């Protein structure tokens, strides 16, 4: 069950909980995205994530289901934070459990790639000189 939340998450605890759901788990691949200090040459003070919350939650659940259907994995968990987040802090976590490590790597990478194209969340960067929405405008 995917989660969209303001609060931080405990990476070790989330991995352990998902791994313990199945004793057949042998390989666990995790992607953790954190706030970088520099973005396109600008020093970042903090960032803010706005979301279309109802839709983002549904799409995150669908994303987990799609990963489980597409790859030979046991389970997939996606957590994305919203609101203000400072440099070095956690933004997004994807955990994939599997009996086969190769499927787990493929599924985890696919899930973060897909997340960026499907989940209605927008990033606002705060620098020393102002703030701006991160959008590659067409």
């Amino acid at each position, binding site marked *: 069950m995917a989660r969209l939340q303001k609060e931080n998450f405990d990476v070790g605890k989330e991995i352990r909980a998902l791994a313990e759901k199945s004793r057949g788990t042998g390989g666990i691949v995790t992607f953790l995205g*954190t706030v970088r200090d520099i973005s396109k040459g600008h020093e970042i003070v903090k960032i803010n994530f706005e979301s279309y919350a109802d839709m983002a939650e549904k799409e995150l659940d669908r994303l987990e289901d799609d990963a489980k259907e597409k790859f030979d994995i046991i389970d997939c968990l996606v957590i994305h934070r919203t609101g203000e987040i400072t440099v070095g802090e956690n*933004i*997004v976590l994807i955990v994939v459990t599997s009996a086969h490590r190769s499927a787990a790597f493929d599924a985890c990478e696919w899930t973060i790639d897909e997340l*960026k194209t499907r*989940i*209605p969340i927008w990033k606002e960067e705060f620098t020393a000189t102002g703030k701006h*929405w991160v959008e590659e405008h067409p």
Partner: protein
Amino acid sequence: MVTVRFFASIKEKVGLESIDIPINGPTSIRDVLNRVANETSVDKAFLMPGGFLYALNQRMESLDTPVNDGDEIAVLPPLSGGF
């Protein structure tokens, strides 16, 4: 009546979180957004620049998708979730 919601940079530029548009008869998402442009100071090309995504009742849809009374449309600028 359909509700049109705006997010991120679009919300700031439109100056509204959402707007309600009354509808009568067959109407598409594009029709509704043209009506939004007529009833606000916002340009059509700004709402439909070719690189946005549109959701109808929280599912991505094309601009030609028909809408019904009570639906929720969302104008989604380019997504930037992740990290």
